[in-house]
């Protein structure tokens, strides 16, 4: 690695600067978009479907509306994965998970009496 020092050029340095600043803005702008989609999904009334940024979202939010908040979590995750990966949401549909009626506590809840 140390031999790199000899051949380091300003070009390499400027590449890092350009890619670096570019990537920081790209990543954080991606998050701006993502969080804006959040607002669309979670905060407005469910009748207003989210916008084009997350092509999978409409498909996913429909059952979400029926199942309430928890369903919305699944929907959002699917939407996020889909939007991030560019794979159509259809390939990602999650088999419905029934509400269990029981919630299991963790082992940490062993009776300490």
């Amino acid at each position, binding site marked *: 690695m140390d031999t790199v020092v000899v051949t380091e050029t300003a*070009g*390499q340095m*400027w*590449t890092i600067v*350009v*890619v670096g600043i570019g990537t920081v803005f790209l990543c954080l702008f991606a998050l701006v978009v993502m969080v804006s989609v959040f607002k669309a999904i979670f905060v407005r009334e469910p009748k207003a479907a989210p916008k084009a940024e997350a092509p999978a979202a409409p498909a996913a939010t429909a059952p979400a509306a029926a199942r309430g908040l*928890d369903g919305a*979590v*699944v929907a959002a*995750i*699917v939407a996020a*994965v889909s939007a991030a*990966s*560019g*794979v159509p949401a259809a*390939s*990602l549909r*999650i088999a419905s*998970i029934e*509400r*269990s*009626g*029981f*919630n*299991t*506590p*963790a*082992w*940490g*809840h*062993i*009776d*300490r*009496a």
Partner: protein
Amino acid sequence: MWQNILEFFQTSGYAGFANSQMMVLRFIPGELIMIVISCVLLYMGIGRKFEPLLLVPIAFGMLLSNLPFGGVFTPAEGGQPGGLIYYLYYGVKMGIYPPLIFLGVGAMTDFGPLIANPKSLLLGAAAQIGIFIPFVIAFYLGKAFPSLGFDLKAAASIGIIGGADGPTAIYLTSKLKPELLGPIAIAAYSYMALVPLIQPPIMKALTTKRERQIKMEQLREVTKVEKIVFPIAVTIFIGLILPSAVPLLGSLMLGNLFRESGVTARLSDTAQNAMMNILTIFLGVSVGATANAARFLQPQTLMIIALGLFAFSCGTACGVLFGKIMCAATGGKVNPLIGSAGVSAVPMAARVSQVVGQRENPENYLLMHAMGPNVAGVIGSAVAAGVMLSFLG
């Protein structure tokens, strides 16, 4: 410069997807499916509260290790340090985390109900048959379909899911078949969380209404000295009969001694809080990280999930059936419903016994009676794991 920028984008996760070695249906990268599965597990843990203390770290570890080029699980090589989880995983590989977590579990466990009613130990033993039936079936499946790769070690790792005890399952699997850690840990913790769904139908099917209504005598009080001597004596007794159970059982009992001795409250507190939480994070994340696409997206994972459910059911059934034997032998003094608690899954299985019992007779309080088989099941599955280890380890 543009050359370099291009090369940089070749290292993005999307490029990783495109070059994935594990294309499902020829076009979906396996890593992407793993990411979705980890999100589903996160949903189960957070949204459905399925054993979240373990499932959340496991699922996140799975997520991190399946982000292409993320490098969190890369081994150290040629002077370059490895990824974070590569180092955390040492504690699994070397069998360090599970016994230390058992130390904390021991510090949280009250063996009083078991000491008060020692016969409940037999129910804890009976429920462990639920480990050996799927072991047999997995072995024959492996013979019938060699592509599954279910040899004796794999079969033992699958069977131990029926022990309903996370650290024991992880410990045994890490020693026998570490490549199955992911699915086995996930199955073990998921079914533990599903105990309230899995057990009641089996319990009802195997018992009569009359049996379910049996009220049990109140337990005697247990003295402090008994509680102190118990962990020491168990370690010596079982340690001499089955040395291979010492790492797990000895740690469990040391933790319990910290709890009961009355003079080591500091150590008991740290063992069940700071230390256990740190190790739970490390264990969960590194067990989850073992589940990479090429290993996880295989038919045997589904088989393990199915056999795990079967194992839980077997354990429940064996516990209840043995409970019926004890009921008959004692002239109806034992409610067979407490037998199902013998699978361990502390304390959920005991609560299920309570709930099912009270549904038949609102004045029936089985909880404390079921805690006996419940904690006995922890000892029982550690013993079963010890036998597996001494034959196959």
